[in-house]
């Protein structure tokens, strides 16, 4: 079982702390810090759902990240909570992940949904921020919920702040490791 942790370096030490806690459960971890990588925005060229099905044609560092996500059992995105969502660095990864999506349509609870291509990963979002308003917090959780629906995956979202203790981190790590 491999967990992929993708973080924005503005979250301080949380990325390393969480990585160590997940490693502690005996899970293999691959970690990327996106700010240092050259990841360009999705151009909506639609090649990944046609001509080069399942593959993104933009040649940058995302080509190192996509194979790891494709093979992982847990994907963890760690981001500062920005305007109730994730940072643009993390969002670039999310947008480019479409190459791993199943372009077919399915029905779930009477609604049209999509899914991941042959993927059985769980999907976690970890937001970091102190003194967030209720509106920011609920927007962050709402984004994760919608992501789960559209990708047809399981998983949870968490928000960490300076009061978050080791016990909570261990609980999160256990949930991530238990796929």
């Amino acid at each position, binding site marked *: 079982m491999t967990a992929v942790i993708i973080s924005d370096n503005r979250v301080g030490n949380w990325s390393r702390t969480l990585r160590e806690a997940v490693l502690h459960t005996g899970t293999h971890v691959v970690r990327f810090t996106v700010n240092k990588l050259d990841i360009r925005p999705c151009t909506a060229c639609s090649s990944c759902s*046609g001509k080069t099905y*399942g593959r993104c044609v933009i040649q940058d560092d995302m080509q190192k990240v996509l194979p790891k996500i494709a093979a992982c059992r847990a994907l963890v995105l760690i981001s500062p909570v920005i305007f*109730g969502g994730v940072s643009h660095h993390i969002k670039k990864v999310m947008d480019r992940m479409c190459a791993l999506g199943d372009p077919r349509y399915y029905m779930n609870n009477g609604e049209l949904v999509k899914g991941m291509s*042959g993927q059985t990963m769980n999907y976690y979002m970890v937001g970091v921020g102190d003194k967030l308003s209720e509106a920011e917090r609920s927007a962050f959780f709402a984004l994760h919920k919608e992501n789960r629906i*559209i990708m047809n995956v399981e998983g949870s979202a968490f928000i960490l702040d300076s009061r978050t203790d080791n016990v909570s981190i261990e609980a999160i790590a256990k949930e991530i490791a238990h796929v």
Partner: protein
Amino acid sequence: MNKYNIMLLCASPRRKGTSAMLLERVRNLTGGDVVFLPQKDSLEEFAMTMKQAETIVISGPCYINTYPARLIELLETASRSGGFSGQKLYGIINGGMPYIHTHRHGLTTLQLFAEQNHLSWQGGFVLGGGAMLDGKPLENHMSRKKVVPAFNQFIRHIAEGSSSLDSLYEQAQTPPGRFVTRIFSKFLTSMVLKNLKKHGHDPNAPNWYLRQQG
């Protein structure tokens, strides 16, 4: 009137897509120019031009349930340099899925951005079923009878500088029932499969990145 009195900002990398079509509709009533969010290089200078506008209308696609990364980058950049002074902000987000809940996070983001940066949030418009339009006029929308007048009303709010309520777009779009949904999903999937077949791909094969790893 200064050039950027009203800024009509298209946040899609597709210049002839649905986001641009909707902005063009706004422009017909409000005047001004449609500007496209640069997809390369630093956004520092571009963020400055936002601050010269009195009214900003942002129209963009829904990518994974909210606006594309590049617009988030613009908001982060503009927020870092500060300097807004009560600019009126309106948002439009369109996505493929024929639902509102899937796309509305984009507007929440704009509202929070406005509240945290001294702009004045004036409301927005969520449009589901936008991918099928693919830049074609709104009159081709599956709920055109209600969506066209609602969007026209939204544009009048922008022109008058008044705020627009969520109920305006919510009441104009009802999600398709189970039967229609099933037909949609069959139809859309058949289009996808046809396209994959044309390019010689097996939809059931493991992902390309997995095949490279053996």
